[in-house]
């Protein structure tokens, strides 16, 4: 699965991986803004951004080709609108939609491929994202794999017993979703019990990141600065 691969990448040990998560989050933010505001005919800037992202990926020791292919998930959506643009006689806008969509996805993917989820969450918490939301996200991600596994097992079990008429299949799917729902509720209850058994009294322990060092600042400055310089010269 996609998330498993990105997670494996995120456990790398390169210098890029070692910077403070806040530095990588902010650098990605600046990069995304500068890419999102690129105007028409910025093909040179697009190429430079691509080089910047690819270069960083190589520095981070990531398999470049796999990363580049991974980022193409955005293309079906982008292509759809690009084709409409092109048909409306605006091929330049079509190209920009594709380029901006792809580069933005690549930038977000690069952040995830160099930042393990727990440290991303702690970075976001430092940036004052509500803790409650982050905790929900943490549990969501944790049990995503478990519940997807259950859904997969149920699907296989249903397939093994063959299907009937279409209308019945629709009802069966609803039954499966209903069972999955009830099981999820029961699992949430079981998790809550396990938490209470271990002394949980309504507060999750806060995560504790390392302090922001000057080298983190230098990385942020360099990455954001490069992105801004590319953007400035594109205009």
């Amino acid at each position, binding site marked *: 699965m996609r998330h498993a691969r990105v997670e494996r990448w995120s456990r790398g040990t390169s210098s890029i991986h070692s910077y403070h998560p806040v530095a990588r989050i902010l650098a990605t933010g600046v990069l995304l803004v500068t890419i999102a505001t690129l105007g028409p005919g910025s093909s040179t800037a697009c190429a430079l951004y691509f080089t910047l992202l690819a270069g960083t990926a190589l520095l981070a020791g990531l398999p470049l080709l796999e990363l580049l292919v991974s980022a193409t998930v955005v293309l079906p959506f982008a292509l759809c609108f690009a084709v*409409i643009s092109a048909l409306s006689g605006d091929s330049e806008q079509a190209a920009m939609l594709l380029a*901006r969509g792809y580069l933005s996805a690549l930038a977000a993917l690069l952040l995830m491929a160099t930042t393990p989820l727990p440290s991303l969450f702690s970075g976001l918490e430092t940036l*004052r994202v509500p803790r409650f*939301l982050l905790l929900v996200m943490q*549990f969501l991600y944790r049990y995503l794999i478990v519940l997807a596994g259950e859904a997969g097992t149920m699907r296989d079990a249903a397939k093994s017993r063959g299907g009937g008429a279409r209308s019945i299949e629709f009802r069966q*799917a609803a039954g499966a979703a209903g069972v999955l*729902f009830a099981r999820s509720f029961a699992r949430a209850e079981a998790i809550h019990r396990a938490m209470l058994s271990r002394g949980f009294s309504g507060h999750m322990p806060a995560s504790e990141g390392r302090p922001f060092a000057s080298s983190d600042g230098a990385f942020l400055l360099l990455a954001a600065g490069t992105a801004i310089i590319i953007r400035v010269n594109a205009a």
Partner: protein
Amino acid sequence: MHIPDGFLKFPVWAAMDAVAIPVVGVVAWRAQRNFQDNRVPLMGVMGAFIFAAQMINFPVGSGTSGHLVGAALLSFTLGPAAAAIVMTAILAIQALVFQDGGVLALGANVFNMALAGVAAGYLPWLLFGGRQVGIFLGAALSLLVSAFLALAELMISGVPMPVPVLAVSVGLFLVSAVMEGAITLVVVQAIERIQPGFLRRPAASHRKILAFGALAATVFAVTAAIFVSETPDGIVSVLRRAGVSAPSVGLFHSPVADYQLDSAMAPWLSRSLAGLAGLVIVYVVCLVIARMITASRPVPRREGA
């Protein structure tokens, strides 16, 4: 429809971030104050359930199938506030981990699906007191509102929408809405058969407030839908009349930057400054709200067995 980055114009995504983030912040703060972290496992697992349930295919004839979207189902079972947070968490995980939907566009996607979508789904549920018609209409309306908002945001951002494309989109939305309504209805029925008591009938005292909020979201959505049905030029002229300096269609050919800070500046400078200033504004707004939340949080301890 998860909008990726690179499709919305700066004023659009920044405005949506500026609206969505404080609202989510306040809802999250209220959730934290009311339930502390006791409902965190439930909300996280139900978010995971929505992901997993989307793996289940619902056959709808001639080899095609649909799947549950789930915003309405969550609002019927967890209540609208919790549903909004769970949907936000789902969208954030999708954007970050799966690159499904943009990071800068997250505010727009959250607004469309987690806020307006949940509210629009909850309104018929309130009005019909949890009857079948309310479940069906709620789910269908939830999907319609989210989809129309996304379409409107794309159009306002100058993504071209020729009339035939619009017609096809609207048709697809209607079909998807009917499917979401039908799927949600049968799933709710299945849940009630397996174990009754999961559905949260709204408390009478909350009905008025919630109904009003949902109604406001619906009116907004309908307005957006009307925009969409107008010609693109119509949108621009309406916005101009309303004093909004919206980007014109075919904007990329325009010699003048659409969101200049100062016309004397070079366009690239004003653009990047505007972009960065927008991010800073969004950030400051969030920070202020976060401060307000942390300042007023003498959380009472409560055992939740």
